[in-house]
C-alpha cells in the first residue's frame, strides 16, 4: 500500500505583498468600463451599446458636415449633448442593470466583498465606471465635431479658437450629463433585482417628469416657474443649465444658480443613496 501525500503548493501561506483596496477599486472600475461597452464578451453584448454610440456619432458627423458647409454651426456642442439625452438614457437603461441588478440577483456581490473591497468601494467603482463610459460616449463625438469644425473653418485662427471654446463647453456639459444621468440611473437600477424591470425603471424615472415641464411652460408662461418645475425632469433641467452657462439660444435663464445647485445636489444625493443602498443589500 502506498501512503497518501498532500502537496504544499504554497499559495495558502503566501506572505508576500498583496494588492490592496486601491487595486481592487481600480480593477472594478476598469471592468465596469469594459462591461459598459461590451468589451471582452461576445458580439451580442456589444450590439446595443455600439448601435447607440454609432447613432450618436453619426449625428455628430452629419452636424459637422452641415456646419462645414454653412458658416454657422447648426447647434452648439452642449446643445448636441442635450439632444442626445434620449439615446443616453437608452444606453443607461441597457447598461445600468448589468452593473447593478445582475450582481445582486446572482448573489455575486458576496464574492466581490470577500476581497479587500468594501461596499462603498463597490458602489463608487461601479458609479465611476458608468459615468466615465457615458462621458466618453458623449465627449467623443463632441471632439469629432470640434475636429471637423476646426479643419473646415474659413476664419482662420479665430475660427479654431471659437471651435475650441465650443469644444470645451461641450466636454464640460458631457461630464455634467454623465454625472447626473449616470448617478440617477445607477441608483434606480440598484434598487431593483430583475434586470428587465430595472431597465424599465431607468427609462421611467427620466420620462415621467418631462410632460410636467411642458405643462408648466403652458400654464405659467413664466420662464422662472418653468425652470423650477424642470427640476422634476433632470433632462430638461440640464438643458436649461446648458443655456445659462453656455448660451446658444435666446432664452433668458432666470434661476441659473439654483439649477446649478440642483445639479450638484442631485449628483451628491444619488451617490450617497447608492452607497447606502449597497451598505444594506444582502450579499
Amino acid at each position, binding site marked *: 500500500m502506498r501512503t497518501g501525500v498532500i502537496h504544499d503548493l504554497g499559495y495558502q501561506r503566501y506572505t508576500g505583498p498583496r494588492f490592496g483596496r486601491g487595486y481592487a477599486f481600480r480593477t472594478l472600475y476598469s471592468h465596469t468600463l469594459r462591461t459598459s461597452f461590451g468589451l471582452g464578451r461576445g458580439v451580442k453584448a456589444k450590439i446595443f451599446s455600439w448601435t447607440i454610440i454609432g447613432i450618436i456619432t453619426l449625428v455628430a458627423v452629419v452636424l459637422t458636415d452641415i456646419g462645414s458647409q454653412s458658416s454657422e454651426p447648426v447647434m452648439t456642442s452642449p446643445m448636441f449633448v442635450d439632444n442626445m439625452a434620449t439615446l443616453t438614457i437608452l444606453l443607461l437603461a441597457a447598461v445600468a442593470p448589468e452593473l447593478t441588478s445582475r450582481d445582486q440577483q446572482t448573489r455575486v456581490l458576496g464574492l466581490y466583498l470577500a476581497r479587500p473591497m468594501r461596499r462603498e468601494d463597490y458602489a463608487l467603482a461601479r458609479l465611476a465606471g458608468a459615468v466615465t463610459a457615458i462621458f466618453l460616449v458623449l465627449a467623443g463625438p463632441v471632439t469629432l465635431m470640434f475636429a471637423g469644425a476646426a479643419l473646415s473653418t474659413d476664419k482662420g485662427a479665430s475660427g479654431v479658437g471659437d471651435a475650441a471654446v465650443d469644444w470645451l463647453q461641450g466636454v464640460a456639459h458631457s461630464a455634467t450629463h454623465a454625472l447626473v444621468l449616470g448617478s440617477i440611473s445607477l441608483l434606480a437600477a440598484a434598487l*431593483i433585482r*430583475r434586470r428587465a*424591470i430595472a431597465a424599465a425603471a431607468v427609462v421611467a424615472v427620466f420620462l415621467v417628469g418631462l410632460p410636467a415641464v411642458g405643462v408648466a411652460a403652458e400654464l405659467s408662461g413664466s420662464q422662472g416657474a418653468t425652470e423650477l418645475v424642470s427640476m422634476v425632469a433632470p433632462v430638461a433641467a440640464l438643458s436649461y443649465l446648458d443655456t445659462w452657462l453656455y448660451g446658444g439660444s435666446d432664452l433668458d435663464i432666470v434661476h441659473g444658480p439654483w439649477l446649478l445647485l440642483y445639479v450638484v445636489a442631485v449628483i451628491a444625493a444619488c451617490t450617497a443613496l447608492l452607497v447606502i443602498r449597497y451598505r444594506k443589500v444582502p450579499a
Partner: protein
Amino acid sequence: MSVVGVLARITIRGLLGRRRFLLLLPLPLLLIAAATIGRISGVDPSRWADAVLSQVGFAVVLPLIAMIVGTGVLGSELEDGSAVTVLTTPVPRGTIVLTKLAVAIGVTTAATALPMFVAGVIVDSVRLGVGLAVGAFVGTVAYTTLFLALSVVSRRPVLIALGYLVIWEGTLVTVLSGVRWLSIRQFAVAVSDRVASTELVTGTLSSLYAVLATAVLAVAATTLAIDRLSAYSVRGETG
C-alpha cells in the same frame, strides 16, 4: 383543476406574488396624482390634459407596464428555465401562450385602463374616462401580444422593447410622420379620441385603422409566439 386554470394561477402568482405587484403601482398612481394636481390648479384642462393623458399616460405608463408584464409573463420563465416544468407536459403550446396572454392583458388592463379611466374622470368627464380606458385596452392588447412574442423570439426582449418605445414611438414619430401608422401609441390615442370624442385627446390616425391594425398585430404576434414556443430550443451552453 383545469389546465388553463392551473396555468393561469401559476402565472398570476409568478407575476404578482409576494409584493411584486407593488412595482406596478408607482406609475398609475403618478398618473392619477398628475391629473389631480391639474384639476386642483383650476386651470382649463385643454392646456394640460394632453401632457398628462397623452404624454404621461399613453407614452409612459401604458407601454412600460405592458412591457414589464408582457415580457415577464413568459420571458422570465424561459430565461431562468422554470418554463421547462410546463413545457415538459402535453399541454398544447397554443394553450400556454393564450393563457399567459390572457393573464398579461388582464393584469395590464387593470393597471392601466383603470387608472386612465380615473384620470379621465378627474380631468373632465366619465365619457373621457371611458374613452381613455378603451384606448388603453386597445394599446394593451397590441403591446402585450407584441412583447410576449418578443420574449419568445429574443433573449433580450426588454432592450428591444425599450428601443422600440423610445426610438421608434418616441423620437422617430416626430421626425418622420409616416411612422405613426406603425406606432401602437397612436393606435391607442386614436381609439380614445374616437370614443371620448373630445379635444383633450387628439389622435392622428383613423380609429378604424387603429383597431384593425391592432387586431392584425395581435393575431400575427400570437401566431408567431405559438409557433416559436412549439419549436423552443433551450438557450445553449455545452455541458
